[in-house]
């Protein structure tokens, strides 16, 4: 049948194209998925070296800049004589107090320009946790001058830099959590699908059961059980572990389904008759056949993890300050009074949506491209 569809194959390149080559060709045709890939790659790049992308020290408090509104970034500097150069700058801001309420009012002083520098020098941070550097993508020429591209929070901390820093935890929770789920999922799903019979029956019921449970109340109860005085790293791993305790079931189901359908494939039987060992059958013959599906499922599971962490931290049961994650940042936006004064506190939510949309596009495209032979 496929011959009629594909036509005579004369294309040399196609004839020797491996599975991954075919998947990549199919994936490339999917524009939204490609966009998702670029955005995801960029976000993880930020998560890898947040210090480089941040402009201010994300933890530095600044009493004089509480609820400082976002400053707009200008790129074209027009001189008095009308000539212009490309040089990023922001206007300096002036703090006044409302005489009655004593509330802070920030106004832009358009006469004063604070020039910014690409690859300039700013606060000191550790790159990859290995060496210290002061190199930043964008830094004020005057290093003591804070820049609030996305405004500042209650304590005068830079929202932009905090979002950048938060990417590290929020995005890695997704990745680490999914890897934990995957280990559980492959173990349980694989055993279930490979051996079948009674083991499969039990595993199936367990998977169904976990899938039928609402996750939030269980996460809440588990997270509430964590002592509040645990160190941040331990807390981080426990939260990730909690999320994967329910996340494995979906992946286990995918793995099991693939295993079951592959087990009856004739080429697997052929490998067994060739004399291949069980290990070789699984890793050489079966695994490549569903690796692409697993990768797609993982990609689609990451955004769910990110959303879960965000929700938990938002409710105050996930990561605790001073850890910075997008969910922790959104806690600041919890009461109506603070978001009414400082709507920019919603911006971390935008980061969440961007990351989740990008990962979903990517995963969706991967899933469509995952089986290049059944088209």
């Amino acid at each position, binding site marked *: *049948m*496929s*011959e*009629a569809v*594909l*036509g005579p*194959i004369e294309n040399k390149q*196609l*004839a*020797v*194209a*491996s*599975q991954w080559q075919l998947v990549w060709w199919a994936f490339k045709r999917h524009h939204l998925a490609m966009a998702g890939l670029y955005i995801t790659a960029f976000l993880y790049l930020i998560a890898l070296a947040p210090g480089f992308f941040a402009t201010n020290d994300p933890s530095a408090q600044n009493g004089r800049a509480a609820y400082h509104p976002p400053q707009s970034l200008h790129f074209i500097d027009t001189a008095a004589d009308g000539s212009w150069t490309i040089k990023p700058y922001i206007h300096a801001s002036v703090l006044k107090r409302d005489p009655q309420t004593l509330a802070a009012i920030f106004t832009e002083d358009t006469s004063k320009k604070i020039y910014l520098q690409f690859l300039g020098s700013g606060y000191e941070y550790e790159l990859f946790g290995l060496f210290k550097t002061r190199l930043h993508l964008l830094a004020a020429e005057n290093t003591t001058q804070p820049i609030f591209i996305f405004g500042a929070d209650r304590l005068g901390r830079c929202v932009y830099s905090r979002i950048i820093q938060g990417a590290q935890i929020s995005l890695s929770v997704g990745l680490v959590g999914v890897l934990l789920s995957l280990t559980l999922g492959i173990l349980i799903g694989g055993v279930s699908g490979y051996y079948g019979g009674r083991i499969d029956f039990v595993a199936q019921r367990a998977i169904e059961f976990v899938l039928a449970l609402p996750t939030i109340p269980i996460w809440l109860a588990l997270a509430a059980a964590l002592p509040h005085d645990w160190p941040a790293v331990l807390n981080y791993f426990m939260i990730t572990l909690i999320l994967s305790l329910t996340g494995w079931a979906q992946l286990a189901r995918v793995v099991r389904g693939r295993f079951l359908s592959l087990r009856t*494939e*004739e*080429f697997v*039987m*052929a*490998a*067994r*008759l*060739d*004399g*291949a*060992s069980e290990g*070789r059958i699984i890793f050489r*013959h079966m695994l*490549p*056949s569903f690796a692409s599906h697993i990768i797609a499922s993982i990609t689609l599971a990451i955004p769910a993890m990110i959303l879960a962490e965000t929700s938990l931290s938002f409710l105050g049961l996930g990561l605790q300050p001073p850890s910075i994650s997008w969910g922790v940042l959104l806690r600041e936006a919890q009461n109506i009074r603070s978001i009414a004064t400082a709507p920019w506190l919603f911006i971390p939510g935008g980061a969440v949506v961007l990351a989740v949309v990008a990962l979903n596009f990517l995963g969706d495209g991967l899933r469509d491209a995952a089986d290049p*032979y059944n088209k």
Partner: protein
Amino acid sequence: MSKTAQTDDGSVILDVRNLVTHFPVRSGVVKAVDDVSFTLHRGKTLCIVGESGSGKSVTARSILQIVDAPGRIVSGEIILHREDGTTTDLAGLNPRGKAIRQVRGRDIAMIFQEPMSSLSPVHTVGEQIMEVLRLHLKMDKAQARTRCIELLGQVEIPKPAEAIDRYTFEFSGGMRQRVMIAMALACNPHILIADEPTTALDVTTQAEIIDLIRRLQNDHGMAVIFITHDMGVVAEIADDVLVMFRGKVMEHGPVDQIFHAPKDDYTRMLIGSVLKLEEKAEIRLKRPPLDTTVEPVMTVKNLSMHFGSNLAVNDVSLHVLPGETLGIVGESGSGKTTMGRCLLRVYQPTAGEISYRRADGSMVDLVRADEGLLKDCRKEIRMIFQDPVGSLNPRMTVSQIIGEPLLVNHLCMGQELEERVVDLMEQVGLNPDWRERYPHAFSGGQRQRIGIARAIALNPRVVVADEATSALDVSLRSQMLDLMMNLQDKLNLSYVFISHDIGVIRYMCDRVAVMYKGKVVETGTADQVCNAPEHPYTQALLSAIPRPDPRARSMHKRHRYKV
């Protein structure tokens, strides 16, 4: 609708002229139907015949404008002549419009290849048949029900009054096709288009369905367009034949001319390859007679295989001589595939023994052999699979696939492995330069050659071939069988050749065992079983096979086997 003066005598009911149907695809356009013309006469049967990809099915679907998206009719005329003298050009109608919908199911009805998937699984058969009656004949519910029961009776479905409320999955394949036919006949159409209606069925069921269509055709005076790839069926039922190849008409004429005086080369080749399978292979005629006095290489005694409570193989005893080809023939569900797999202990038989004589003369009972011994024996007993797509790992190159048994058995590696793969590919007639290619770059026949190369890589002594040619077009079948027989001579192989196709068995096998419901009902030499069968089931099976000769129609004389 227009009234046009017709010069013919009024016997033409459908006139297809210069029909062109295209499928736009990413890399251009597939010309599925390319300038096809033919006429269909009242009450007659036209067979459209061709191999896969010939465009025969698209031609049929174009008539009702139900070509799957993105296919569409580009040009041409399909003129329907009604009995009242009016004519309609179906190709000119809007495919979603009312006019064509009134033709569908009423003037021209259609039945399809897969009766299971062509009927809705969640509606009762009655619901699906009554729908046509209510739509075209405006019957009320009670009338439609009465008529529906009558129709089910006409297509010989037992207890039609109960069957009407049942679902399709409660019927067997043959019964489902009867339901399809009842649905198609509901409005007494003038034309019935049957798109490979018997391909998915066993030959005895096929004979029943063909009988039924023929009887209904006589009763109702329908014209039938019958699409098939089976030249035997064509010879049995056709008045006229249209031979198609890659979207074009190769030859169009009366059935006797097509079979006995074909003008076109392709037709000649097609008929030739069918007739070839009516006889013993030339290679076998040249061979010296088989030495039947030697000890068998494999002896099966009282083998049984249960799946749960279902007895798939029931007390089977067989033997295979060195250098012999033993055919196993049977219909679906006869247990032949299960039996073949038991020989390599893919399934663990539940009873009996399989004694295998190794090259050094020692005997092994494969049913009870331990893992290590079994692994050694599997080097000597190999398998060729039916599905040339599913049996090759799409993620490995041809060289990896063929080399896998050599590699995992630590027989050779590196340069030596490479050389051996090249040698094997040459033996099965594949260009060794293609060894870095993946299976998707090969045609069905080439893939089956890869499967054969993998099977002979370990220099086996016995090869179990499970329907090794049934996925291939008829023109490729004899080539594949010849290749297998050449290899047999060269490597001194014994084959256990499993097939439902008696032609292939006759061409290839020395002896035949006939299986029916898990049991071997008859064993004998191929000549004896094919020409003078003893068991009533074998007689029924053979008599149901249509012969590729319109002058020797025999199906109406067939035996039926009743337990």
